[in-house]
């Protein structure tokens, strides 16, 4: 019984961490932009998924990302249920490429790759909610991606001891 519990312990712990991060993210202040429905904010769950991707097998994290995304959908955006799970699954899959090629790619390319993934992730997310996808919206999304990248770099330096970069 104990062994069985031990097998699922990591999953349960990570799930609780994600719930805490989700609550923290909900109450974390966002930057209001000139575009309606476009708030620039940190995505802590996404950053946590990057961490998990580098510590566990990718296909397991893809499953995990799906359920976390679904949970986030139910909690935050019930009208677009499936959106977060879709985006998170895609994000984790491509982070797998970064993990596989971590020793081959240069630091600049890794920055670029993660920024690109964040930009695509945020663009697809905001595309659903904003009325018109204009140049300013793209700029704000790019800034949001940069902010998240900086946070990933900081967390990687301070907590993960440069495991990602």
């Amino acid at each position, binding site marked *: 019984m104990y062994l069985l519990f031990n097998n699922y312990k990591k999953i349960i712990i990570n799930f609780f961490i994600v719930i805490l991060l989700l609550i923290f993210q909900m109450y974390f202040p966002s930057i209001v932009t000139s575009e309606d429905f476009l708030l620039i904010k940190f995505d802590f769950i996404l950053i946590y998924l990057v961490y998990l991707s580098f510590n566990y097998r*990718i*296909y397991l994290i*893809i*499953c995990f*990302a*799906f359920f976390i*995304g*679904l949970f986030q*959908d139910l909690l935050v955006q019930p*009208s*677009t*249920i*499936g*959106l977060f*799970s*879709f985006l998170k*699954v*895609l994000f984790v*899959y491509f982070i*797998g490429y970064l993990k596989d090629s971590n020793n081959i790619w240069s630091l600049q390319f890794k920055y670029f790759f993660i920024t690109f993934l964040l930009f695509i992730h945020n663009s697809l997310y905001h595309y*659903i*909610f904003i009325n018109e996808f204009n140049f300013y919206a793209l700029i704000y999304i790019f800034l949001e991606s940069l902010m998240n990248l900086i946070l990933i770099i900081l967390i990687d330096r301070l907590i993960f001891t440069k495991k990602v970069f």
Partner: protein
Amino acid sequence: MSYTNTFFLNKRLITLFIFLFFSLLLFFTNKSKFVQKVEKDIIDLVAFISYPKLWYENILYVKSSNDLLSQNVTQLKLLNSKLTNYQIENIKLREMLDFKETHPMLSLLPANKVNDNFTSIYSIIINVGINDAINKNQPVIDMNGLVGKTIKVGDNASKVQLITDKNFAISVKVGNEMSLAIFKPTFGRYGYLEGVLKTLVLNEGEIIYTSGVSEIYPSDLPVAKVVSFTKDPDKLTQNVIVEILAKINELNYVFVIQ
């Protein structure tokens, strides 16, 4: 590479597709305005992507339609010309019917020209024969005047010697005094009259009729009209040039007088 290894390498991809499928299934089963907006945009995107294919298909469709329409136009043109011919034929037949009704004394049998025959004598072949009670030496006319006479009769067709044939001659009456003369063809639509006395007064355009002297031709069939006449001091008779009334070159339908 073993089957198990292949599966292991693709495990990530398989997991991705499974969860993407479920994510999209969940997303599109929702009917919120955001999902509907995405659906609209996807439809627009699909339409945009498939536009070249549609454009190409349209071109092919237009090309095939164009070929078909060209074919239809040709067919309709042919049909139109056929109908126009029918209309002309109808008008001619109506005129012939009227002509027949204006000559109640004559028993007219309509016939159609089948063929021209200019080998030995100027003649035509018509599509009536013994089966239609046609005999040799029966006069043939069109709506304008005398055309000729039957010279050979088959079961279903007859040969008609034309008035323009060199060997053709007919007794006619001419002038106010109805003097007798002999009509003989010269060339084309023209002919001359023999035996017209100098004393006879003639007018240009005057119609010449059959005299009725012959056993073949009944009297008063229009034959020709006077074109010119001259009086030669050395001759007793006038030189009268006439033009045949029947439209020999445009023959299509004729009547056989029975």
